[in-house]
């Protein structure tokens, strides 16, 4: 399963409760109210466990995490992670 689908599925399952109709790859998770601060911590835990990486505090920014597209781009720049973007 490619990274984009894994990330989308996680967000839809955990924050949108199966209703992903309005979640586009560039939908801002902050602006849309999809994820709050506790949700960001859940997202980080998911990314670290799923993609076997460590996210440094300075990487926890909307620039890196605020949409499916941005998350996949961020993952592709992390070392030793093979990411296949949609």
């Amino acid at each position, binding site marked *: 399963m490619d990274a984009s689908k894994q990330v989308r599925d996680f967000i839809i399952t955990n924050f949108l409760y199966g209703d992903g109709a309005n979640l586009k790859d560039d939908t801002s998770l902050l602006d849309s*109210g999809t994820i709050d601060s506790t949700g*960001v911590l859940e997202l980080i835990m998911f990314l670290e466990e799923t993609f076997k990486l460590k996210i440094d505090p300075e990487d926890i920014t909307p620039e890196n995490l605020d949409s499916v597209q941005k998350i996949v781009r961020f993952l592709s720049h992390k070392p030793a992670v093979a990411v296949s973007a949609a």
Partner: protein
Amino acid sequence: MSHARFHPDLLRLDCSAEAARIEEMLKRVVLRQFRKRGLVVGLSGGIDSSVVATIATRALGRERVFGLLMPERDSADETLTLSRTVAEHLGIDHALEDISLILDAAGCYKRRDDAIKRLIPDYSPGDKCKLVLPPLTEQESYRLFKIVVQHKDGRTAQAALDLKSYLTVVAASNFKQRTRKMLEYYYADSMNFAVAGTPNLLEYDQGFFVKLGDGAADVKPIAHLYKTQVYQLAEFLQVPEVIRQRPPTTDTYSLPQSQEEFYFSLPYGKMDMVLYGKNHGYSAADIAPHVGLSEKQVQVVFRDIESKRHAAAYLHSPPVLVETSA
């Protein structure tokens, strides 16, 4: 929206009228609606509980107000003294219940400390700690908690909280508010009294309370007042000046922690103005000059307010029942 120009004076309160209104509510609800003999007020030595106790005493008479002083191991040194000052100033009966042993038995301190040790391995019981948020900036950012520790030898350390640690530290700390409320209801039940809650509007609206902890109560006499207005009322009611001068604090962690370090984006005076402005349809541009922020920063605070309101909905929610089919 057509309305008066935005100005801090919009928060000015007619204290005499407002006090009368709250007193009428307390008499009507506590005595007639609930048929209780009086009101229990947890006294933290802070402005909110002091105002509630004072206004309750005016409404119901001092024999119908009971103060509970409930310090614990992490309470600030002045908390007990200030709580007692309020009770003695009002001439109300009161009791001291140090809740440290209850919290110890429930594992409050140990669960919190174990969570912190996962992040700061040389943290040990007796070290002091607090949670802090980063300051507000213009950039949209995630405001994620850090734990700040001061070791017994004065060294400090800090670490970003991961999900498990954050949830555990908060859950463990929530024992404090829930234990206090448990004792308030013990005294209330034993005296046939009702229990007062003491949140102000900022706290009530923004979910700055613990569900079934300080969020539980039978009446909340100042939950409709901005904190700025609570201070105005405190001056009108002649709450002792030492209480009125005390900076707002969470008094939850062993290191002094302001409410804006822990929860709000801004000091309460500015937070009140932004919240008032948002509630009354003013724009970020209207509000910004009066709070010393850029328009963009006010917009960030607007978004923070909405986000906290969303989370607060769960805290306010009573149990949800299944509709009967009949």
